């Protein structure tokens, strides 16, 4: 077997298979910043290709009813309404109202189940043609080969700095491998979700990024957990460490010197984004409460004398999520809005069904969304049912990706509950013969301010809304509300991740000794669920840094097409992940929530890579491309 020679990014940019070139930022200003800089640090990076590997392979079952002309499609989708819209209107030419898409509890997606795939369309078509149910389920090998892959960038980065370590500019040229075809959202990933995040946590005054997208004989690449933002964070956090090393500065000193201070929010970056809220130094301080940095440096020095190479890596990341203001994505060319809907249906007995357009494929919306409804409606959580993943039940929805469920979907739900409370209050005021303004709702009871003994329960109001025997004039019966929330901005989680590793000099083996994640996700609805998301995200990001790698041979054969040779992280590969948080609410939504689904993946890859490079820094190697396998590290250290 021969391993494919890696082409240079310059060679790829000349490739005849290029599909588009995209740029962002002020090129002239950036070039000027470089010409006046005391120091310019350069590095090429390979952000290698990954395979999502959701635990449940993709599956689709279509059942056509010739009597009604309807087709029901059960499919592993992260966004059933989008599936229905695209499949009906653009692929099969079906009336949208005759296609029902159901994607109930899906076994993970990590982005790979956002997109429309041919198999789902084929079974739907075949079921109509045959008037029989038709089912298809991917095998694991097919998942490896055909699920949209992630990452796959070649980048050349340059950072301009002042002599005292202030970042003056960043120039990035990236070649993004799109695979053989454009997957549904593919062009957005290495552009709007990548170039826009290159400011990170720093006050870099000017940035220019140029992205060349190329076609190759490989599986299409699209959104995979983090989608563009891990690539940006990896590049930027590595560049910050490399710059610190070249200037003889401590990696934390250069970060603190360049952090956007908390007083400067909202903060306009030079790459289009307006950061909502943040306290980057605060998250770093919090991390250092649990990680004794000076003590570690002493331990590291002692260990080196004994031939042991310990290293620490930091990743002080920012993420953009909660996708997205519809107007913004529309102006960028997206043929979709990115709001979310929620219907709150109060039944006559006072029990509540919530129909959300967000989709839960492992995120636990059944719990967190019920918590929001329960808190707002002041009802026991058992009285709330969260329904998702069915176009036959949920009016409309954009689904889950880009860490948007809490920030957008739960906010829509929150707004729906406010409408319910407003209407219920009108009915209560009527029944209590009081002025609406004097009615308060506390502990699930409506009463007149100052006389809590006379009250109507939420259930009383719900029943009256449906009996309608005694309603306020001009108020419709029923108690149901639909809300659409279209956020005014993205939300921007941030934090500090710290990774401690040991590299074995003789073999290049890496042991992750410690992993600490301090994240600021705005307000947290359910700490346990968020901890789990952070754990999983960190595992995926560590795994990219050290193990996972989709590799093709020179004939275009995927040679890592099974779990025998594509390394997924095992529990015993990882230390117990320590999780901490700071809380800076976002003003973008009334809940103050940001997003938690992708921070772990976005932050951790850079933290691990920085730690490995820190460990071997006395050996004269400044950078090794990922994955940092023992063989690759050993080769890089050969002769040093």
């Amino acid at each position: 077997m021969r391993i494919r020679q890696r082409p240079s990014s310059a060679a790829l940019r000349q490739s005849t298979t290029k599909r588009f070139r995209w740029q962002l930022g002020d090129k002239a200003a950036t070039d000027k910043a470089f010409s006046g800089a005391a120091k310019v640090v350069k590095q090429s990076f390979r952000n290698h290709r990954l395979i999502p590997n959701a635990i449940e392979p993709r599956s689709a079952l279509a059942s056509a009813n010739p009597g009604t002309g309807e087709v029901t499609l059960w499919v592993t989708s992260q966004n059933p309404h989008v599936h229905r819209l695209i499949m009906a209107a653009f692929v099969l030419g079906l009336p949208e109202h005759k296609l029902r898409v159901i994607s109930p509890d899906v076994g993970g997606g990590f982005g790979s189940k956002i997109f429309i795939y041919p198999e789902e369309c084929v079974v739907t078509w075949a079921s109509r043609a045959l008037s029989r149910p038709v089912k298809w389920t991917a095998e694991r090998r097919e998942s490896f080969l055909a699920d949209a892959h992630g990452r796959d960038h070649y980048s050349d980065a340059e950072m301009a700095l002042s002599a005292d370590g202030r970042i003056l500019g960043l120039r990035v040229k990236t070649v993004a491998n799109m695979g053989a075809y454009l997957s549904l959202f593919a062009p957005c990933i290495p552009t709007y979700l990548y170039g826009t995040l290159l400011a990170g946590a720093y006050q870099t005054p000017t940035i220019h990024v140029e992205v060349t997208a190329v076609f190759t004989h490989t599986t299409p690449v699209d959104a995979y957990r983090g989608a563009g933002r891990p690539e940006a964070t990896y590049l930027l956090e590595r560049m910050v460490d490399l710059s610190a090393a070249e200037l003889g500065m401590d990696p934390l000193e250069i970060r603190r010197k360049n952090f956007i201070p908390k007083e400067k929010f909202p903060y306009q970056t030079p790459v289009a984004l307006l950061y909502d809220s943040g306290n980057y130094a605060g998250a770093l301080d919090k991390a250092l409460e649990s990680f004794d940095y000076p003590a570690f440096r002493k331990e590291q020095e002692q260990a080196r004398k004994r031939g042991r190479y310990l290293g620490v890596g930091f990743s002080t990341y920012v993420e953009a999520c909660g996708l997205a203001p519809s107007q913004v994505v529309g102006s960028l060319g997206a043929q979709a809005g990115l709001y979310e809907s929620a219907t709150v249906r109060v039944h006559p007995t006072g029990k509540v069904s919530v129909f959300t357009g967000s989709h839960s494929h492992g995120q636990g919306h059944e719990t967190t969304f019920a918590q929001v409804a329960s808190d707002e409606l002041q009802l026991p959580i058992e009285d709330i049912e969260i329904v998702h993943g069915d176009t036959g039940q949920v009016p409309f929805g954009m689904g889950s990706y880009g860490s948007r469920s809490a920030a957008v979907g739960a906010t829509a739900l929150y707004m729906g509950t406010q409408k319910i409370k407003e209407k219920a209050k009108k009915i209560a005021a009527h029944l209590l013969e009081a002025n609406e303004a004097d009615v308060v709702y506390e502990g699930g009871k409506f009463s007149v301010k100052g006389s809590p003994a006379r009250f109507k329960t939420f259930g009383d109001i719900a029943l009256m809304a449906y009996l309608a025997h005694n309603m306020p004039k001009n108020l419709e019966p029923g108690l149901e509300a639909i809300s659409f929330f279209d956020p005014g901005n993205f939300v921007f989680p941030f934090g500090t991740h710290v990774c401690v590793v040991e590299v074995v000099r003789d073999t290049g083996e890496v042991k992750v000794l410690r992993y600490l994640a301090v994240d600021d996700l705005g307000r947290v609805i359910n700490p346990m669920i968020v901890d789990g998301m952070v754990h999983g995200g960190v595992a995926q990001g560590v795994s990219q840094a050290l193990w996972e790698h989709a590799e093709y041979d020179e004939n275009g054969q995927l040679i890592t097409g099974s779990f025998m040779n594509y390394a997924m992280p095992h529990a015993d590969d990882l230390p117990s992940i320590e999780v901490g948080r700071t809380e800076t609410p976002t003003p973008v939504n009334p809940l103050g929530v940001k997003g938690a689904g992708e921070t772990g993946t976005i932050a951790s890859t850079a933290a691990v890579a920085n730690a490995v490079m820190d460990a071997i820094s006395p050996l004269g190697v400044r950078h090794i491309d990922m994955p940092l396998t023992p063989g690759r590290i050993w080769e890089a250290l050969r002769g040093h």
Partner: protein
Amino acid sequence: MYSAPFEYHAPATLSEALALLGQYGDEAKVLAGSQSLVPLMKLRLAQPAHLVDLRKVDGLTGVREAQGALLIGALTTHAALASSELIRAKLPMAAEAAGQIGDAQVRNLGTIGGSLAHADPSADWPAVLVALDASVVVAGPRGERTMKVEELIVGPLSTALEPGELLTQVRVPLPPARTAGAYEKLPNPASRFAIVGVAAEVSLDSRNAVQWARVAITGLAPKVTRAAKVEQALQGKAADASTVKAASARAAEGLELRPDLTGSAAYKTQLAAVYTERAVLRAVSRARER
């Protein structure tokens, strides 16, 4: 993928099992713990028409001591061996190797005999059992025979077993005093098979010099290989760190190393040396205490 169709047989005795193998010849495959054969069947790389499952055959599991050896039933699972008091006390290398095979599920189902008969070039047992100078008992249509594990494994996925023969028992001679082994493995992060695995059994004399050493390496070559140069370099020498290091540097001599996703030939040479050194040093330190 589903396997190709096959007929399943579950004989209750060894003679029934042998009769089935005799009857179906090349069309039959033997099923032990199912951890190697079944994945191959699901990929349709193996499509036996008849599957002869040995798990209901009496007397093929367990460990006992007899005739100066430990007798291990071929269907004893890796997990049972990793936790066997007898193995842990007498053959600590075997216990530690068994505990590193695959993952918990594989160890709970996979068997020592199945692993040997499958002869994966990166499996752990071949190295350990060659270092321990173990033999296997083979039952066949013409009765029983025994052979050394070193003779059993002839190439990748290839053994000296004849058609119609069954591997029934592994016999490991009990090590003499001041003799012990250690197994050191760098697992492939995906498969957990050995990128390199080195089993070293070392016997010391009363002055702590090496009387003999048996060093076997898995993962690097098409089949388990004795590191003869290392063994020779250790023999008669004081087992100090510098001697072991110098001897271990010769671990990959004579091996045809091929580069793959895990590293270059040069890297594999280095791994052989480092893992041999680690295994020998630990074996020496164990031998001193026995």
